[in-house]
């Protein structure tokens, strides 16, 4: 049986002012179903790039390696196909969509994914019921649904809105790219609760973070250290505490 998520020898580069710049230099990572993994690492080590490549952003070119997700070749799929297959990326800097109503956006996304998964679409009433229950859990006001997507949202509101989308889209693999950065303790707890509510034997998460605190709430199964475009060290939840105290220096030396 194939693994849930299996990243193998992944190399990717981006066009930086005409010159290709290699950012991922052989990432190997396996996430079994039902597990929460964290990736930590210094700035510029390729964490966000990995999350974008997994979600299908086109400006990154995969030069070698493979990613299989539930037995499928993830890299061959369009971003919307990946979403339908269960991949969800919570953006580090959520994008503003002026003129697009947040509730309409959510319903369009939910129904696009439901259609692709062969589920019946939600009518307006059923959708509102579901979304209101979700916003309540996330301590979000209904007023946020009436605004344009992320426009005029505070940093915390944007992150909460990402978690709302995640809750509504019911992914089987959630990638959280520094969703905890810039959040106060209460907001952090809400994000963690959002992830924990999805936990099941068929749900996994890849959590990119700089901070120990989110991991306290999530209690990850594995923690990986990423440096210079590779996973250089892996361990249990205690690794995050170690990093919190010692920093990355020892792992960087190890990688070099």
């Amino acid at each position, binding site marked *: 049986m194939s693994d849930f998520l299996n990243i193998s020898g992944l190399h990717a580069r981006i066009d930086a002012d005409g010159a290709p710049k290699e950012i991922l230099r052989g990432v190997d990572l396996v996430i079994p179903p039902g597990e929460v993994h964290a990736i930590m690492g210094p700035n510029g080590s390729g964490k966000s790039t990995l999350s974008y490549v997994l979600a299908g952003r*086109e400006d990154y070119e995969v030069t070698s390696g493979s990613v299989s997700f539930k037995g499928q070749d993830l890299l061959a799929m369009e971003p*919307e196909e990946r*979403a339908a297959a269960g991949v969800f990326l919570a953006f580090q800097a959520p*994008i503003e*969509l002026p*003129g697009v109503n947040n509730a309409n956006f959510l319903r369009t996304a939910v129904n696009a994914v439901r259609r692709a998964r062969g589920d019946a679409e939600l009518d*307006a009433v059923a959708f509102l019921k579901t979304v209101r229950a979700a916003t309540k859990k996330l301590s979000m006001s209904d007023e946020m649904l009436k605004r344009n997507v992320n426009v005029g949202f505070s940093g915390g509101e944007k992150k909460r809105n990402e978690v709302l989308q995640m809750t509504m889209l019911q992914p089987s693999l959630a990638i959280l790219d520094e969703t905890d950065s810039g959040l106060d303790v209460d907001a952090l707890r809400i994000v963690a609760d959002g992830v924990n509510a999805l936990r099941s034997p068929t749900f996994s998460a890849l959590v990119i973070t700089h901070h120990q605190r989110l991991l306290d709430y999530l209690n990850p199964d594995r923690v990986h250290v990423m440096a210079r475009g590779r996973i250089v060290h892996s361990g249990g939840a205690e690794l995050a505490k170690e990093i919190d105290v010692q920093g990355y220096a020892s792992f960087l030396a190890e990688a070099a």
Partner: protein
Amino acid sequence: MNAIAPVGRSLAPFEARLDGIADPVRHAAVGELRRVGLPGPRVEAWRYTHLRPLAGHEFREAAASFDADVVGCALDEVLPRDGLLASTPRLVLVNGRFAPELSSPANGVALPEGVMFERFLASPEFDALATPEREPLVALNTALATDGVRLSVAEGAAVGRIVLVSVAFAGEETVSFHPRHSVSLGTGASLELIEVAVSSGNNASAVTYFHNPVLTCSVGEGAKLTHVKVQKEAAGATHLATVYANIATRGAYDSFTLGLGADLARHEVHARLSGAKAAVHVNGAQLLGEKQVGDITSVITHAAPDCISRQTIRNVLTDHARGVFQGKVHVHQIAQKTDGYQMNQALLLSPHAEIDAKPELEIYADDVKCSHGATVGALDDEQLFYLRSRGVPEAQARRILVEAFLLEVLDLHEDEAGRALLDTALGAALSLRIGREQILEQTAGEASE
């Protein structure tokens, strides 16, 4: 003739109808036309919009008869029987000729009290607001106008909405029509004028006709005229409209134009703020494809202090379409404390699409606030990726973003029925131009129940 009018285009398409006009005003207009010709590219105001499509045709006067069923279908389509505008008083012109049997009160809806309605045909007098000596297209209208509507709203009367529909019914012949409309609001009066230009018949793309309306608006002290226009002429048509508005003290002319149809279209507004604290809005949007050319031109004159002018225009251009925006703001020396704003934005969805934008500010007062700006861009890759990463297929994501870009400017129009008309027309055009994917699901409307 060429020796006399070296810069202009030939009047040949209309020549047969210009001879033997005796009425002195019309005769003067013909003289003016013969002197300058139709404007060519060397005329600054027509540098970006060329009247080439008119050449090579002979535009005849349209026959008075039409197929009532076909025209009725076109009316039902634009003003659905279950829609907000079904029971709104309407004035219908077919090929520029007023059709009383399709209009209020014959259709069962009375014109509101406080409105005086008269056909132009009944007493063909020309409003002094229009300037045929300066605008050749107005001169052409003056020479050839046969009909139109004239509305006068009594002092203090708030009469609500009136729909003015122009239906082109094209037969075998290539025709042109030049309706002459005028609207006049007394002190403190208000009116919402909803103007629609459509064509009838299924084979619309094969149809060539020329619609050349002139509308003059006189807005009295403290009066408010709201004017929304939807232009969806047949694909082969030429639509060249000129609006003149004079706005008295504390009066307001609030306009929105949506350009979707025609092969060549121009909506030209001359607005004069002639009394203190008057306001004018010339907002609009265009969604064009294929080889369409759409031009929104405005000349706003601040001739009194403390007035406000606002112009927000958004263009979405696909294929080989070309958009033009020319916005002139002229601030007289007396017009201190003028507050002017002008913004033209374009979304180019094809490497062959083009936008030409020309702001012109001419300011003689020293205490004014006048800003203008223009942006041009393609769809934002990050926004597209964000939508797709949430499962929305690419074509649908593109449409959502295009629609959002245009809805932001439609939001400037506040009248509910006018807005519904704009939304419906835009939705159909988006389906035609941007893709036939399912549109953004509407939740907000139902959420407010």
